[in-house]
């Protein structure tokens, strides 16, 4: 088992190394002069030269790469071209709202999706099941920002129940925090809920058709313990794996959701950086997001290798 875990950790290093090379290479292998692209259309030659100097683009490629990688490894993600602040500081400043929104969305989504997935599998073929599956297809089809604006229009413009935009830290004012985070959470959660509900239904269906479930029925066990203790436990590997992999979906959605609801998090930082072509910030954010994504999935895989004796890959 130990060698499995070590192998898995090792492959994570490889993946992150490829990500790093890619993030570094994107700037250098893109068509055209990277310094000119970053400087924008209105830049003078001096501007371009200044950026080239600042990013070290005038040095040989391998030297730049070694320098950049060794800096990243000690947590130095470079300096923002726009604000002249270290990228790691910018990220640290913006991380709280993003973590808060991602966590509320994950909790909210799992609490909704897993139960409806279970019920859909238990009553498969029923109207309820069809409704859940219909919702799942719909959830995949409606882009985050479309749903977000429909929520804003209903709850902020028409009913005036919730604040339209902005973010209050939970440490400053918990009530305002929850009022403000409700709509972003629902908007961001829809696709994630669709995804988890679908996989829950599929893997529960498979579990429910097993012999041991029939045995449990036969010995007179009530429905709830059969579903939760026997079926869900055995169906949980794909569900938890999907929750982990679906985080990629959340990260993409966070960028959009924060932009719609004017939440000052990493997503907004990313969008602002793109519009300003602040490439060191873009690089930093991509590295952080991908790193977190890869680490969470590593943790989930290790967790299951330890817990579930059936997993041997």
């Amino acid at each position, binding site marked *: 088992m130990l060698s499995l875990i070590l192998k898995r950790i090792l492959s994570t290093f490889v993946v992150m190394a490829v990500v790093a090379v890619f993030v570094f290479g994107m700037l250098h292998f893109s068509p055209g002069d990277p310094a000119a692209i970053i400087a924008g259309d209105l830049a003078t030659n001096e501007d371009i030269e200044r950026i080239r100097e600042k990013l070290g683009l005038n040095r040989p490629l391998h030297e730049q790469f070694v320098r950049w990688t060794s800096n990243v490894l000690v947590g130095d993600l470079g300096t923002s071209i726009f604000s002249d602040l270290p990228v790691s500081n910018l990220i640290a400043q913006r991380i709280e709202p993003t973590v808060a929104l991602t966590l509320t969305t994950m909790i909210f989504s799992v609490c909704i999706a897993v139960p409806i997935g279970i019920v859909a599998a238990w009553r498969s073929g029923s109207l309820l099941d069809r409704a859940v599956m219909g919702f799942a*297809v719909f959830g995949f089809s409606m882009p985050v920002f479309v749903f977000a604006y429909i929520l804003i229009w209903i709850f902020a413009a028409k009913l005036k129940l919730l604040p339209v935009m902005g973010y209050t830290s939970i440490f400053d004012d918990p009530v305002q925090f929850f009022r403000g985070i409700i709509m972003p959470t629902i908007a961001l959660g829809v696709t994630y809920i669709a995804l988890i509900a679908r996989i829950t239904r599929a893997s529960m269906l498979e579990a429910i058709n097993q012999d041991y479930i029939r045995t449990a029925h036969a010995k007179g066990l009530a429905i709830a313990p059969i579903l939760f203790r026997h079926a869900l436990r055995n169906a949980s590997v794909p569900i938890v794996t999907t929750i982990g992999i679906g985080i990629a979906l959340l990260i993409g959605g966070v960028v959009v959701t924060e932009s719609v609801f004017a939440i000052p998090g990493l997503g907004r930082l990313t969008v602002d950086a793109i519009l300003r072509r602040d490439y060191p910030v873009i690089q930093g954010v991509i590295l952080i997001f991908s790193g977190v994504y890869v680490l969470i999935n590593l943790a989930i895989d290790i967790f299951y290798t330890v817990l579930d004796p059936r997993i041997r890959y």
Partner: protein
Amino acid sequence: MSAVATADAVPAGRVRRAARWLWRRPIVLAGLILIGSMVVLALASPIFATHDPIRLNPTQRLKPPSAEHWFGTDQLGRDVYSRVVYGSQISLLVGFSVAFLSTVLGLAIGLVTGFVRKLDAVIMRIMDGLMAIPSILLAIALISLSKSSVENVIIAITIPEVPRMVRLVRSVVLTLREQLFVDAAVSLGAGLPRILALHIMPNTIAPLIVQATYVCASAIIIEAILSFLGAGTPPDIPSWGNIMAEGRTYVMIAFWILLFPGIFLTLVVLGVNLLGDGLRDTLDPRLRRSARNL
């Protein structure tokens, strides 16, 4: 050759059989109808549009839907309905192009990696790395490094989709290469290109078509997101994402600018997803939409 000849000889029978096949699959039918209407809308935009989509009309700013302006007007007095009609062109162009390009690339790379052991490890590690970057972020980063144009949007959305296609093709190839008919072909002296083209590739078509529909759906969404964030299709082109981006400031007073492009966007993606689900159930029931295909 003979199949084509029979098809030409009795077209009526074929059409009727196809129609009956479709009739028994209402989901595929609904998807096809949605996509079909959007294609008609995109191809015949000048016929459907009631106004010039980019003509400003300062006296008619932010007017709610009416008989004259079916979907209302935006902050510059442009007709939202006509803009939405023309917006279908960009969405479909991007969706179909990305689906096509990523399928071709995925097929080419996947066939090679599946059969050439030495390349397999290297290419798959690169693909794993690419897949670790959330696709919207990767597309955004690629866009930020290029000039804003529809072609660049297509390329930026295609690159993150390729690894998923490669994985799919490779997994099919890996199971196929152990099959007896491949051994038979090898022992008959068939070369690698011949085996790939005649024996392996046809078997990848069904799962690839299904996957391509999902890629198409997500490409349409990502294009809208990129445009909405201001990093996509050039702002002077009325794509649905652009229309919504311009209308976002007016969400409280002129919701129609956001609502109608949003509805069309959802409908076309829904159509593609329905078609994909229907095809998957028919062509390859083993292929389930999992998070890996997102």
